[in-house]
């Protein structure tokens, strides 16, 4: 058991550093595309050291303190309850037979915690950001859940390990080939889950500076930054496991997750920002329809 906990901590450590590097490298690529030199790739580390070495910090109450912890719990929980490396005893973590349901819950967990904390900060922009974030996340859950249910019906299991196992043996076995409608619904919902354009109205730095974390500073912001490194990578690993056959080693994991991440980046640079009513309406049309078709096909074919 102790061994397993240590390996879980190692997983969190590796994923956190990978997340920080992605946060440094992706803006760097964006800068080079725009003919700028761009931030150093280790800038996220400097930012986080700086934030933790601030001398003052203010609080608006207990929930304000707990909210970043909730958020971080959401990220780490999502990561630790699924198999990160398929077939490895070290990095299977705490995945179990019904982990798919728990993981779906952890997707939502951090947002709710953040909503409580941001509401206590009393800043109007936080309240606007939270209401936008919750409605958007709720809307995207439709496509995502229908896709996931379709996969669960297809493979007759609620265990991520078994879903990954069923996809082994070449890319023709991946869910994205065997169940394209579910994959499409999930990948469109994934765009919303990553919070990049066109679904970045939650943070909207130029409009509601900067949404839910407006009042968070110093170490509290540092905790949120750590989560911002872990949570996206955890989501990437989830999608890799469900749709792209998982990974049998860290190298494969990094290649696959980076390419999935690039999907959200490419869409983000092409499309402008949706208003929240537009994005909710969009999630309730195309991904929802694709999800329903996926369920129908799996059920009746």
């Amino acid at each position, binding site marked *: 058991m102790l061994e397993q906990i240590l390996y879980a901590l190692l997983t969190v450590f590796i994923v956190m550093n990978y997340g920080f590097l992605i946060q440094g490298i992706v803006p760097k690529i964006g800068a080079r595309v725009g003919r700028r030199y761009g931030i150093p790739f280790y800038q996220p580390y400097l930012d986080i050291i*700086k934030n933790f070495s601030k001398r003052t910090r203010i609080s608006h109450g207990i929930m304000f303190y707990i909210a970043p912890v909730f958020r971080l719990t959401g990220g780490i929980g999502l990561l630790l309850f699924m198999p990160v490396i398929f077939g490895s005893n070290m990095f299977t973590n705490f995945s179990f037979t019904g982990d798919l349901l728990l993981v779906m819950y952890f997707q939502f967990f951090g947002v709710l915690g953040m909503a409580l904390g941001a509401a206590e900060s009393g800043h109007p922009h936080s309240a606007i950001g939270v209401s936008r974030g919750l409605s958007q996340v709720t809307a995207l859950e439709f496509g995502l859940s229908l896709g996931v249910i379709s996969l669960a019906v297809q493979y007759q299991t609620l265990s991520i390990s078994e879903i990954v196992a069923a996809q082994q043996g070449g890319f023709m076995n991946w869910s994205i080939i065997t169940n394209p409608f579910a994959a499409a619904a999930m990948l469109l919902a994934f765009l919303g889950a990553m919070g990049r354009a066109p679904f970045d109205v939650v943070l909207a730095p130029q409009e509601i500076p900067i949404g839910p974390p407006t009042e968070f500073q110093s170490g509290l912001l540092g905790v949120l930054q750590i989560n911002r490194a872990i949570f996206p990578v955890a989501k990437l690993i989830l999608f890799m496991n469900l749709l792209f056959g998982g990974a049998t080693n860290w190298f494969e994991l990094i290649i696959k997750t980076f390419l999935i991440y690039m999907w959200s980046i490419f869409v983000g640079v092409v499309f402008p920002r949706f208003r929240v009513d537009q994005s909710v309406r969009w999630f309730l049309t195309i991904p929802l329809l694709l999800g329903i078709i996926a369920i129908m096909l799996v059920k009746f074919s």
Partner: protein
Amino acid sequence: MREELEKRIVYSPEGEAIEIDPLKDYFCDALPQVEQKSSIAILEKFANWARSRSLWVLGFGTGCGAIEMRPLMTPKFDAYRYGIQWRPTPRQSEVFVISGYLSVKTLKRVIRSYEQMQGPKYVIALGSCTINGGMYWDSYNTINRLDYYMPVDVYIAGCMPRPEALLAGFEHLKKIIREGRGEGANKYAKDFAWYKANQKKIIKDWDMPDYNW
């Protein structure tokens, strides 16, 4: 005193009377404290190094000099490579660029934003107007010397200074921080009474607590 800041009684739907004193309920008026440096020298040095490499600038342009901040984000100057980024909220930023002349009306907002920033925090004064008033030295509604109202770390002279001058100012600020001399927040806390008296001398319609972190 503005009307919405006066004491009043509001009634809940059940008819319960609630007394509201906005200045007490909505603000915290605890005075700033001098924050000690870390007692371990090497830790403080390390923190200062990180602070100097990660400067988050408050996106608040006070005067015409704000136009000189924009080019720094463009490919030509690209301040991001020096670790300089813009943040939309004072809570998360530590560098305040007072860009050009400061009217009395703006000064009030500047003070509130400055006090909401978390220490250690730094102020860069851009342009001659912040040093001696510049071309507005005899204007009826701009201040002449910024360091009467808040501690300034770096002055950049000129009217207007070029974006290169602003970049050079940032580099100078980095040097100051690395040497451990960027203690503006502590100076403000130490000489708080003097700064506050100066501010109140200029701002006639003072309708906020003395310190609203």
